[in-house]
């Protein structure tokens, strides 16, 4: 007996212990269908905290309908019992002590469907009844400024809002609030009505939403939810933003200025923007960052591609006034004035889209270029050409464009665009050149002054129609376009050539010949082309797609060049037509192109092959001596590509493109020209087409979590029957050239880069290598020559950002080796160049920021190119931000502190190497003030502005 007692004491202790560890309270009862007196098994019992309806626990009833469920704390609970087909049972209980709470019998009854119909007692003009929907026009009910939707709803007859934000419409609780038909606009309907501004709402619609199933099947299952939909106004978002930058300073060459103003006002889908820029610091237009905001996209076309990428392409044909980055990339000192206006609007759920742009640009450029060219000739002979070129040009441009896009229905779109442009460029160029041989004996000199006043007018338009069919992948598109361009120029050519004839053995001067030209040149070119293209895609299976296309194009060109001499050399009237250098041609080209492409799309592998054939009938008509030539070309364009997605971040791709290239008319039948008397072209009627093969293989692999990437690409161009040159350089350095067909030409490049992040140092590092090869066959003074011009580059990059983002630094050094050989000459020209870039910025207290960047170029001299081209370009700035949101910024910057900047370009091709030195912007200091302003009256609550980015 005693041991038994011990045991029971022990058991009791164990029970107490467990009870103390996790205190719990139980609720029990039995669920029954009272009507039929059935005990209900598997009924669901859910226990919720009474104060916030948070679920505490749940259970299912046993076979006999009994249940027992636990809670963690005392207090008030909602007990919900549910059973299919029976009305839900909800009761509130309070657990006050440790004893199990017995609910006894939980009675459940069958559901009674009570259809609540409401009667509209009052009719307001502002209220419409559309079928089952009651619609209120929000603006008809006055609310205070900044009133919320809740305040608006309170004003609407038939709608009540209680203090908890619960809405009752026509006597029934509203369970859903949609915004523009969207259910999960935010997490909580009360949030919508409290945060959304009443002004943003166009209509309030009250209706009973059918269940999703009923909407899907069309069969009404009687399940309805009283719902309010807030239809937002189209102009819910309205406001403006912009910036003004004023900057001025002084430098060694001139005083500098950089002023910019840009503004964008938007109201819903309507957008109006304007900008103006005037600067002589190299800023010539909106950069890509500002172009979307203020320039209406700059005419670029953005498309979603088949594989889900987004591609933007710019038609750069007539955009010589603006570069992608918005900075001047050319030579010399530019002064630019640019301005633009943009308007666009969309309406009827974006079905209609209208847009227009106007641009004005003016640029003055002063350029001085010194060029030295080294020609390799047979028998270790050389030829050196030194030239100085001074150009001053003033260009002005106007351009207007318009776009209308109409989404006719969900499957078809019509798009019409038109643009017109006018530009005028006046320029004066002065050339001084001399030509010497390897013994430094003067062979010839040339002094030339060319003036030109050229005006171009253009009108282009396109019409695009696309339709997608019900069958996925079946599409048809029609494109019609028109291009017209007219260029007229008028200019003078004043040139003096002195030729020094030397004995080919002794080099002694035999005679000099002087030759002067004083002529007026008037040129007129017009081009009108009309083209149309039809393309159709058809899915042959789930993974196979066939595309066929046909295009037809007609070009009508006329080219008139007239040269006039003075009858009286001392007068200033050019009154005699010089027929040698005058001509008048008409070209007509008619091209038919047909193509087809077969594409296979699998989950990981994607490949396609196909091609097109085009036939061009070319007619050249000489209007002065009335003769005409006819040519007929057939071009082939085979292509193939293969892509394998190894994983989402890793893919390999191979592309092949083949194309025939026809000789140009200039190559077959050159027009006589005396602009450059030391370079004379001879036609070759036997010249035939060349065929180019382009092969490209690329691989990329990016690891997002470790920040490691590998990109590699190789491209090869093989040219069969390449159009190359045969040159003859005579003893006085005069070049006569003719185009010929040769075999064995190729060019190629390779690129590989690898980067990773060193986590411990928070340092991104990378290494990259490039190779460029060019292998060209040509003929020099009757001898076959093979030139190899190769470049090899190796670079590193490092970048570091401090944890708090206040300090950042990057350093990118690279080194290149350039190697040029020609078989006609034993000498080679090889040189090293290095480039190092260092950038740093640091945010100081009181919103001060300092930054600096250095570009250090070291370029090896050669025996011929012995000028010092090393540059240490050092820029620095200090800035301070003011006002709320850093709206105002004062910045003092210094460009090229050591005054070393230099324009430099050295390149090699065939048997010659050229080096250009040109003037460019050098040291200046600039003080500038930037004001960013923004005002937005958005009615929609601000959401997180996060997007998911994967490459």
């Amino acid at each position: 007996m005693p041991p038994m007692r011990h045991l029971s004491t022990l058991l009791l202790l164990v029970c107490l212990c467990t009870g103390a560890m996790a205190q719990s309270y139980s609720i029990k009862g039995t669920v029954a269908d009272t009507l039929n007196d059935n005990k209900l098994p598997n009924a669901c019992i859910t226990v919720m905290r009474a104060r916030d309806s948070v679920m505490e626990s749940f259970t299912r009833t046993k076979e006999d309908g009994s249940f027992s469920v636990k809670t963690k704390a005392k207090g008030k609970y909602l007990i919900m019992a549910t059973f299919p087909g029976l009305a839900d049972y909800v009761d509130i209980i309070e657990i006050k002590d440790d004893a199990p709470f017995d609910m006894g019998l939980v009675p459940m009854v069958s559901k009674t469907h009570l259809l609540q119909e409401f009667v509209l007692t009052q009719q307001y003009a502002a209220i419409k009844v559309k079928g089952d929907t009651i619609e209120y026009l929000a603006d008809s009910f006055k609310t205070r400024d900044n009133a919320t939707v809740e305040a608006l709803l309170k004003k609407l007859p038939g709608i009540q809002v209680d203090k908890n934000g619960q809405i009752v419409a026509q006597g029934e609780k509203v369970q859903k609030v949609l915004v523009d038909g969207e259910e999960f606009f935010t997490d909580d309907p009360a949030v919508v009505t409290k945060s959304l501004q009443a002004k943003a709402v166009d209509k309030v619609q009250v209706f009973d939403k059918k269940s999703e199933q009923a909407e899907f099947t069309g069969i009404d299952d009687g399940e309805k939810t009283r719902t309010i939909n807030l239809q937002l106004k189209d102009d819910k978002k309205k406001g403006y933003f912009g910036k003004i930058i004023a900057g001025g300073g002084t430098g060694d060459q001139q005083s500098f200025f950089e002023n910019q103003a840009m503004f964008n006002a938007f109201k819903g889908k309507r957008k109006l923007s304007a900008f103006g820029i005037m600067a002589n610091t190299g800023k010539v237009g909106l950069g890509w960052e500002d172009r979307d905001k203020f320039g209406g996209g700059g005419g670029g076309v953005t498309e979603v591609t088949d594989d889900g990428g987004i591609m933007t392409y710019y038609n750069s044909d007539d955009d010589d006034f603006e570069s992608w980055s918005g900075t001047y990339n050319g030579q010399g000192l530019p002064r630019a004035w640019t301005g633009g206006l943009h308007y666009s609007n969309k309406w009827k759920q974006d079905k209609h889209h209208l847009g227009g742009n106007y641009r004005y640009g003016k640029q003055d450029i002063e350029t001085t270029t010194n060029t030295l060219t080294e020609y390799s000739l047979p028998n270790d002979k050389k030829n050196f050409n030194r030239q100085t070129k001074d150009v001053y040009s003033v260009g002005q441009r106007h351009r207007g464009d318009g776009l209308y896009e109409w989404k006719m229905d969900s499957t078809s779109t019509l798009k019409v665009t038109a643009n017109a442009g006018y530009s005028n460029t006046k320029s004066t160029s002065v050339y001084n050149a001399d030509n010497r041989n390897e013994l430094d004996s003067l062979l010839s000199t040339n002094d030339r002054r060319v003036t030109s006043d050229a005006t171009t007018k253009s009108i282009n338009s396109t019409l695009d129609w696309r339709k997608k069919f019900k069958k996925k992948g079946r599409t048809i598109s029609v494109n019609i376009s028109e291009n017209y361009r007219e260029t007229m120029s008028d200019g003078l050519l004043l040139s003096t050539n002195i030729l020094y004839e030397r004995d080919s053995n002794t080099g002694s001067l035999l005679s000099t010949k002087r030759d002067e030209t004083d002529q007026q040149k008037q040129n007129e070119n017009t081009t009108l082309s009309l083209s149309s293209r039809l393309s159709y895609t058809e899915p042959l299976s789930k993974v196979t797609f066939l595309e066929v296309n046909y295009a037809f194009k007609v070009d009508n060109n006329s080219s008139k060049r007239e040269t006039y001499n003075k009858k009286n050399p001392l007068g200033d009237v050019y009154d005699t037509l010089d027929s040698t250098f005058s001509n008048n041609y008409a070209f007509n080209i008619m091209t038919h192109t047909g193509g087809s492409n077969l594409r296979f799309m699998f989950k990981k592998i994607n490949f396609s092959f196909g091609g097109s054939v085009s036939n061009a009938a070319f007619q050249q008509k000489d209007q002065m001596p009335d003769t005409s030539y006819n040519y007929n070309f057939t071009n082939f364009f085979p292509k193939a590509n293969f892509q394998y997605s190894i994983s989402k971040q890793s893919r390999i791709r191979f592309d092949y493109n083949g194309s025939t290239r026809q000789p140009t008319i200039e190559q077959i039948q050159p027009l006589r020209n005396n602009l450059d008397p030391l370079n004379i072209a001879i036609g070759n009627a036997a010249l035939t087409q060349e065929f180019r093969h382009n092969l490209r293989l690329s691989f990329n692999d990016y690891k997002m979590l470790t920040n490691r990437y590998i990109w590699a690409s190789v491209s090869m161009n093989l040219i069969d029957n390449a159009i190359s040159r045969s040159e003859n350089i005579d003893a006085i350095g005069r070049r006569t050239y003719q185009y010929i067909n040769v075999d064995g030409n190729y060019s190629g490049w390779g690129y590989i880069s690898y980067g990773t992040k060193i986590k411990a140092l928070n340092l991104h590092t990378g290494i990259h290598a490039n190779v460029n090869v060019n292998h060209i066959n040509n003929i020099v003074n009757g001898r076959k020559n093979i030139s190899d011009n190769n470049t090899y580059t190796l670079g590193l990059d490092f970048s570091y950002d401090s944890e708090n983002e206040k300090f950042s630094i990057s350093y990118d050094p690279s080194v290149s080796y350039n190697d040029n050989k020609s078989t006609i000459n034993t000498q080679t020209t090889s040189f090293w160049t290095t480039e190092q870039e260092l950038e740093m910025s640091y945010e100081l207290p009181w919103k001060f920021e300092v930054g600096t960047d250095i570009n250090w170029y070291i370029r090896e001299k050669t025996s011929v190119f012995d000028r010092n081209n090393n540059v240490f370009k050092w820029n620095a700035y200090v800035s301070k931000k003011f006002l709320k949101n850093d709206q105002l910024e004062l910045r003092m910057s210094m460009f090229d502190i050591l005054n070393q900047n230099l324009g430099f370009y050295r390149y090699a091709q065939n048997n010659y190497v050229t080096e250009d030195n040109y003037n460019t912007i050098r040291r200046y200091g600039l003080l500038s003030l930037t004001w960013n302003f923004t005002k937005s009256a958005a009615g929609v609550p601000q959401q997180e502005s996060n997007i998911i980015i994967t490459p």
Partner: protein
Amino acid sequence: MKRILVTISTLLLTISATAQYTVQGKIEYEKKVNLQRIMDDLDEEQKEWMERFRSQLPKFTTTYFDLYFNASKSLYKPGREVEGNTKLWFAQSPASENIVLTDFKTERVKANKQVFEQKFLVEDSMRQIEWKISDEIRTIANYKCRKAVGKILDSVYVVAFYTEDIMVSGGPEMFSGLPGMILQIAIPRLNTTWIATKIDVVAPKESDFTISDKGKKVNQKELYDNLRESLKDWKKYADKNIWWSML
């Protein structure tokens, strides 16, 4: 007449009282990501760029998932392929092809998650969510569902519709713990919904519950810490990618 009605209704009630609950089967979920809403989340200036191709985008990207379940476990995995589904680079999210095995007996979950280049094998106990039950009812795939709202990762709201008529406390991804099967999930901040479109009441085979043991072993907390650290440089773009990976 009245008597007949009473008889019929009694008959119906008797049937329903003894009606079998669903305890096993296969659910097909349709997952929809609202692309247009992703763009609404952008700030005004980014939107200027997006506006240029907005009209070319579909409203949603749709994918399908299957959930096999019985009383003791469930397996969630990618389902049928959608033909010609545009895979937009900016709408792609990590961990969008998860396989999740939930064991209701041991209260453990195991998941294969491909987060960018890294394959994770997540092993953890079933997620505890504080669900707020509401009285909103809707019918999904012929099941009466009740709404519950919960929160994960401290700030991401989850709206769930569950049915008590399926006696398994499971759901898509790692969502579970309600007094019945979750037939719809909406995550407003990810502009995404999962909704059951088809339910087959057939016993799943044991082979339907297979899951690979490959991948870097982590629990949910370790996965979170790992991604926080790895995506440190992504600044504000990190959050959504982490949320996607933690579902």
